[in-house]
């Protein structure tokens, strides 16, 4: 965990902040290790071991923020950076119109550790490179597969957060993931099919529990089937979406619009704003009654379940959409009071020591319903079953979206039949979720996550998990994703 020197650095920074007359300050010291093994076309293309150590100091002075950070952890650099953060905050305060007021939060003194059976950094490298090579071998055993890739990723973040309010939080958090992709060629066309474990806060058991050999064989077969499959005919279809696919749909069309900073205009110049404006909370019909979207940053193993966010707020569970009505935002200590909330829900996160925390999507998931997956499909006359992630794009207020997928099967008269290719569907978010008339039960619930959610200027990567069971959507417009569509 953190070293005694880290506490000394924290004390030094907070003393400088207190002396400045600032009303609030905190310091995050972080030591991150990342191991990335990447295989391409039956070779190990790179093995990278990245160590990233530094600290960031955040200061609220007369209602305005300043932040400074450095990768030099020393008794000389910490006070320089703390002073710089104070001076920057004073500059911000000199032009402030509305002063930042932080929602209150109890003082926390805690230590959060990711439970893990097998430390990924203790697993011999040969074992991991063998897995990557063997996976690519299986992928390319299928004739017709022209290219293959496989990768393993693991990250450990050791962090000390200390605030001027007295909170002291230590973190030792792990996350991991593995994936593979086959690309098949047929009559001048190419198509890819992938398998990915979820990104989860687990040890190397996450990788061992996934049967990469079986999954590689499956996706290789399906890549070939996909490239040979007929292109979809444009038109209206009922869609049954699998949990991995839904994780992206939820992320883009529910996650981002429920970020309160977007609704308040903070992201207007980059990621955009939100159609879920503050007056819609509690009365806007976002989806059908079957649609319940819950934020849960307390579920073990999920990416946003870190115990506390980077405001030092304890992780929580709350409703975003209840029976189809939009009811809740993802908030921070700064933004929560702006909509009359007395407490932040704990969704303020930075992607490392070098960035200031911003509001981030929580672990938003679709609550399971009561059907089985087969029952959802059985009630479809003409539809498409979609798995995995493909093309995606959405407007800056999160109304108009367009998604592809990784694999598509035609549903005819209640039966999943053959694969299709080049399926793209589009819609308007509340109309789309209002067309949801069934969600499979909890036994079909799966969790998928993202570590590359881009937001903020300078850009930061957000981490969160979206859980779902398969869900059915009626009469969705589908187009063919190629030139003559």
């Amino acid at each position, binding site marked *: 965990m953190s070293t005694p020197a880290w506490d000394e650095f924290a004390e030094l920074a907070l003393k400088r902040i207190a002396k400045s007359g600032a009303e609030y300050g905190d310091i995050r010291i972080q030591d991150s290790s990342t191991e990335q093994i990447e295989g391409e076309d039956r*070779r190990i*293309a790179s093995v*990278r*071991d*990245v*160590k*990233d*150590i*530094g600290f960031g100091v955040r200061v609220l002075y007369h209602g*305005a*923020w*300043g*932040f*400074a*950070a*450095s*990768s*030099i952890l020393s008794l000389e650099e910490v006070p*320089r950076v703390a002073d*710089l*953060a104070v*001076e*920057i905050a*004073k*500059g911000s305060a*000199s*032009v402030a*119109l509305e002063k930042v007021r932080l929602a209150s939060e109890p003082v926390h003194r805690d230590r959060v550790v990711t439970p893990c059976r097998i430390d990924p950094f203790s697993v011999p*490298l*040969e074992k991991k*490179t063998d897995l990557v*090579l063997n996976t690519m071998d299986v992928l390319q055993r299928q004739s017709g597969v*022209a*290219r293959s890739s496989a990768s393993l990723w693991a990250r450990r973040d050791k962090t000390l957060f200390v605030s001027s309010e007295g909170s002291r939080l230590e973190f030792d958090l792990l996350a991991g993931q593995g994936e593979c992709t086959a690309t098949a*060629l047929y009559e*001048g066309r*190419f198509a890819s099919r992938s398998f990915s474990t979820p990104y989860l806060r687990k040890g190397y058991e996450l990788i061992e529990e996934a049967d990469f050999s079986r999954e590689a064989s499956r996706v290789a077969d399906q890549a070939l089937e996909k490239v040979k499959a007929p292109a979809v005919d444009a038109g209206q279809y009922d869609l049954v979406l699998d949990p991995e696919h839904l994780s992206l749909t939820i992320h883009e069309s529910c996650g981002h619009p429920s970020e309160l900073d977007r609704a*308040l*205009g903070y*992201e*207007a*110049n980059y990621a*955009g704003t939100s159609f879920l404006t503050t007056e819609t909370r509690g009365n806007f019909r976002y989806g059908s009654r079957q649609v319940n979207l819950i934020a849960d940053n307390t579920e073990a193993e999920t990416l946003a379940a870190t115990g506390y966010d980077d405001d030092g707020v304890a992780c929580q569970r709350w409703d975003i959409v209840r029976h189809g009505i939009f009811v809740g935002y993802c908030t921070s200590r700064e933004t929560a009071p702006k909509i009359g909330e007395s407490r932040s829900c704990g969704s303020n996160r930075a992607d490392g020591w*070098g*960035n*200031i925390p*911003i509001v981030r999507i929580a672990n938003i998931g679709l609550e399971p319903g009561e059907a089985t997956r087969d029952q959802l499909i059985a009630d479809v006359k003409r539809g498409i079953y979609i798995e995995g992630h493909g*093309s995606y*794009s959405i*407007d800056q*207020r999160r*109304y*108009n979206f367009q998604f592809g997928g990784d694999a598509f099967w035609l549903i005819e008269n209640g039966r999943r039949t053959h694969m299709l290719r080049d399926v*793209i569907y589009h819609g*308007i978010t509340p109309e789309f979720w209002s067309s949801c008339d069934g969600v499979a039960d909890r036994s079909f619930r799966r969790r998928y996550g993202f570590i590359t959610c881009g937001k903020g*200027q*300078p850009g930061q990567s957000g981490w969160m998990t979206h859980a779902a069971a398969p869900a059915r959507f009626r009469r969705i417009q589908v187009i063919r*994703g190629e*030139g003559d*569509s």
Partner: protein
Amino acid sequence: MTVLSGTWPKMTGSDEFRFLSELVLTRSSADHTIISLRDHHAGTTRFANNQVIQNVDVRRGSLAVTVAFGGRHGTASTTDFTAGAIQDTLARAEQIARISPVDPEYLPPPDPCTFPVRETASPETMAAGPAKRLEYANEAIGHCRMENIMAAGVVSSSATAVGIAADTGLFGYERRTDARFSLTVQAGDATGWSAAAHRSIDHLKVQERTLVAIAKSKRGRDAYELPAGRYSVILEPAAVAGLWAWLIRSLDAKSYMKKTSPFADKLGQAIVDKRLTLRNAPDHADLLGEAFTHEGLPSTDSVWIDQGILKQLAYDRFTAKAGGVNTIPTLEAPVLSIEGASAHSIQDLIKSTERGILVTNFWYIRPVNSRDLMLTGMTRDGTFLVEKGEIVSAVKNFRFHESPLLAFQRLSAWTTPMEAVNSETAKMLVPAMALPQFHFSSVTRF
């Protein structure tokens, strides 16, 4: 004003990088060793709702060491520049390399060469700090407050020391600066946007670009809905750059060789209108040219598309060697130009349009189909109907569904190349263009 106005703390210099490199090279037991430096000092002032919401300053130094024993290689990096940490980084890289499988595509580091000397660091950006950034932010906010409309944007500046060294004697060191301004103006439901990027913070033209964004937002009020369909369009430079960025990203030579590229079998053939030429111009004062790449190769002038014909691909060193390509071209400073008489300005393009859609920018462009480079994305921050040579109304934003390989087969009119950058593309010089039959596949609600 109380904000510190001084420069950043001293960044790693050439001699210091040489010292650090020697520290690694003399201790390395590997057959080959490469050291890469990136010492980045950056600050951003971010504003929204006419006030500063974020004001940050960050220093991040990182040193990466790649070593190889035969064809086995490994890379480790650190942000800690103390001698012990650097030795530990070398040890970690060696440990990885010793037990990694042989990579059949591994190549030793490049031989030493004389890199071009370029004006990549502007003294005014090196000297700029929080005070300068705040001054520019206030300038933009002030104009918007006077108009009673809302400003959101950023002013950022950075200075980076970049270095590369290897046991072959290869050594390169360069300081690079980067300054950016972007602004989204909200006038009720309407938005207007403008952006700039330059080596020099003094070339951001904050006032001029603020006024452009304000004018667009004011014109954007009362947008009405046109049906999806094919329209003549006038694409402003940022919109053109958004489409070309994806074309450029798809020029990977290995994908080409493996026939998983939209350009398969098209090298030497026309891929766009024969009047279009794409080249790399690293010495252009308004572009972000560099002396060398992260692999330690010199950046040079090169022609990628010559009068519509695909001439170059983006090579990694192994694919270049396998393909007999001796000089690997770079494309960090793209200039897209069009042969023939051009319009003087975007306004001239508008004047010569009977009916069409003027697009300020595209947003969230993503590939729909990698085979034909079909892309989708949304118009953003200023979409207007032009009739009989005039902007007559704002229109609700469209989703497009187009391949640049089709869209840029048919040019109606164009300007000379202009500076273009947006939140999703690197800086380029591209013309504004009028294109017929551009495919808008759906409409959004604003």
